[in-house]
């Protein structure tokens, strides 16, 4: 992964010093709440329900074992011994003290980490596919460009106070796993007819109150121009984005209001002044950064391992884990492993300090000391030898990290909701836990197959409920907590926004509602059809009928 040079390190150190002084001035009463707000937000610090919340950046989801150990120690020393991986691949601490945050950032800086621009109205941490660099369907490894973009966007002098937050995702695979269409800018890397790296640019996607999938603004952008082109887009947005109404401030609203043609015209006009200027990325710089993302020192291994095959054949629990948590790898003899942060009945995405140490040890022993976080809120060991899988499984299982539910109904994406978030209309973690307990039978889960269930505690959609096959949204009705259900949402190349099935439900009803949705699916599905495909084929009606019919007779 990328290694800091003295310049990177100095920037992070200087940031700690700057923020330390800002915090001091705030605590001394020299900065008002309103003035301190954007400053702390751009250092990842929210003021939340119980305490501040600190969001630590994990650029495009890559972590070293050393970094994870540091995170473990930080959560132990400054928090309550656990952290929460977010849908933007970052790690959140729920209980830090405001006074401690400069020290936390200083500790992070010792392992090349920070919390820069993890919130606030600036360009946020750039996200990508957790299998970048190893996915068999990868066309271009986008990490080097993602790193160049991370640097370009860090303290960008023009874009520190945009109308609203700004999210960029990159993807270089046939199958999009970065949800480029749900981002302010989505960059889809591919090889053009000349075999050169090129980028398809999506703009104006986003979830939240007004979920909109992005539109392609440019089919073919030469990679050298990605910074100048993004700069042109964001300039147009900075000047013309709506600042008068926070709910209409995202770029998606501007693109819709102007229409993509007019927006595109303005971007082109702006880009004409920037193209071929100093922002043009040189081959040298790309090569320099790409060096850090070169393939790992893989061994030459046979495609099969007899001991592994035997273990799969003789051990059903191991076989189940391999089926769900082990993924294809472009190098023969290697696999990627997802460590599930979704054990049944626990908050999705949570990980304890002890577990972090276990994962760091696993990464060191079996995966070149590196790991990744996914937007589904799990951790990934990307480079495990086939022959090591059994040992990895045993150790992960002992630490509670081997629930074989990846991609299944209980691999729930879930925001912190009312337990932690002050914006919440309803709790989301207990709903996730109740659903996980309802579907605690693994055989039944396998029979249901691939299904994505996403939960958000409010309209802000941190849990991506709009793009879940089943989406659950917490709503407030006369001061009590209710849940609205959508079905038919999907992430990926054929992304879609789910449809609301009808009036909302109480918390107690939710596991039953999901159960009835599944009943309709199991009854109606054809052949190997996934839940999402059945919904797409049949529409909402049969699901709605069954869910609400039961409700009336109950």
């Amino acid at each position: 992964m990328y290694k800091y040079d003295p310049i990177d390190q100095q920037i992070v150190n200087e940031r700690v010093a700057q923020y330390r002084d800002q915090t001091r001035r705030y605590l001394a009463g020299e900065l008002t709440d309103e003035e301190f707000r954007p400053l702390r937000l751009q250092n990842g610090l929210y003021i939340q329900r119980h305490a501040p919340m600190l969001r630590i950046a994990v650029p495009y989801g890559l972590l070293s074992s050393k970094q994870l150990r540091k995170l473990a120690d930080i959560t132990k020393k400054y928090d309550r011994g656990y952290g929460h991986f977010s849908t933007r691949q970052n790690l959140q601490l729920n209980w830090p003290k405001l006074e401690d945050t400069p020290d936390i950032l200083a500790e992070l800086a010792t392992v090349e980490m920070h919390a820069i621009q993890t919130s606030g109205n600036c360009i946020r941490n750039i996200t990508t596919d957790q299998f970048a660099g190893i996915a068999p369907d990868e066309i271009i490894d986008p990490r080097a460009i993602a790193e160049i973009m991370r640097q370009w966007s860090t303290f960008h002098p023009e874009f520190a106070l945009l109308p609203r937050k700004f999210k960029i995702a990159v993807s270089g695979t046939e199958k999009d796993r970065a949800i480029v269409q749900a981002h302010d800018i989505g960059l889809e890397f591919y090889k053009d007819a000349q075999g050169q790296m090129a980028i398809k640019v999506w703009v104006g996607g986003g979830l939240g109150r007004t979920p909109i999938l992005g539109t392609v603004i440019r089919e073919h952008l030469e990679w050298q121009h990605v910074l100048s082109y993004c700069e042109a887009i964001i300039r147009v947005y900075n000047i013309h984005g709506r600042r008068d109404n926070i709910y209409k401030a995202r770029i998606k609203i501007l693109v819709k209001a102007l229409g993509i043609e007019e927006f595109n015209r303005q971007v082109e006009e702006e880009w004409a002044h920037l193209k071929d200027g100093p922002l043009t990325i040189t081959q040298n710089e790309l090569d320099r950064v790409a060096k850090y993302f070169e393939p790992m020192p893989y061994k030459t291994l046979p495609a099969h391992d007899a001991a592994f095959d035997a273990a799969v054949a003789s051990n059903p629990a191991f076989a189940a884990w391999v089926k769900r948590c082990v993924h294809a790898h472009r190098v023969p003899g290697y696999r990627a492993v997802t460590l599930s942060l979704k054990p049944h009945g626990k908050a999705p995405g949570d990980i304890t300090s002890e577990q972090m140490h276990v994962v760091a040890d696993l990464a060191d022993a079996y995966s070149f000391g590196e790991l990744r976080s996914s937007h589904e809120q799990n951790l990934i060991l990307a480079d495990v030898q086939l022959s090591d899988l059994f040992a990895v499984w045993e150790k992960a299982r002992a630490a509670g990290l081997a629930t074989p539910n990846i991609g299944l109904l209980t691999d729930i994406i879930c925001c912190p909701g009312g337990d932690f978030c002050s914006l919440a209309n309803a709790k989301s973690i207990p709903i996730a836990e109740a659903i996980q307990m309802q579907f605690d039978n693994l055989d039944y889960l396998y029979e249901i197959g691939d299904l994505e269930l996403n939960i958000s505690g409010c309209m802000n959609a941190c849990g991506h409920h709009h793009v879940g096959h089943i989406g659950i949204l917490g709503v407030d009705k006369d001061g009590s907590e209710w849940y609205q259900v959508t079905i038919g949402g999907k992430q990926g190349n054929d992304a879609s926004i789910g449809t609301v099935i009808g009036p909302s439900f109480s918390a107690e009803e939710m596991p039953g509602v999901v159960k009835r949705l599944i009943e309709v699916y199991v009854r109606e599905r054809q052949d190997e059809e996934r839940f999402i495909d059945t919904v797409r084929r049949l529409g909402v009606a049969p699901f709605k009928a069954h869910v609400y019919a039961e409700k009336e007779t109950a």
Partner: protein
Amino acid sequence: MSQLIQLAANGQASIVADEWTRVVPPAPAEESVRKQAGKVVLFKLTGEPTFSAEQIANTHIPATGKILVPLTIWQARKAELQPRLAAGELGIVLATHETAEALQAEFADINSLPIIAIFVERFADGRIFTLGAWLRTRFGYKNELRAIGDVLRDQLFFHKRAGFNSFLIRADRSAEDALASLNDFSQPYQGGVADVPVWRRVNRA
């Protein structure tokens, strides 16, 4: 004590006396609170009118000395102000929701202005940065570019890199303290108005 920080050509920052008097239109007779979705609207949209005809007509312009005049007032009272411009005594104030094009439309050579100030009503309005960058790069403006209004030390580093070379710190804050913030970072990553991206500046291999 002056609140004005100025950058010399060599980048050296110092606190200097402010020679310019800002011309400010009177507050409107009654300003209705603008609301959207139940919330008070804090920012004007790009292209919204800045002052009413009445405000413009009632604005007092000092008869002598160097004056900083809002673009709208210049547009409406050009004849009266032209001699001041010729004498080098007139600078323009652009609001963050006004456009650089509107300014250029008024002055065939924007370098005939010894100073352009951009007024930011609320520090959280980041349009000031793009406007600054545009004036310096696309419009080739070379003279003093000043940030005024809700200008706080924590934004100065960005102002500077977006092309501003003077900063009028908000009256209730220390300009002395603010000086330090101009050097919060020693080696920024991306290019600014006056520098190129780090990989063109430094050999990082």
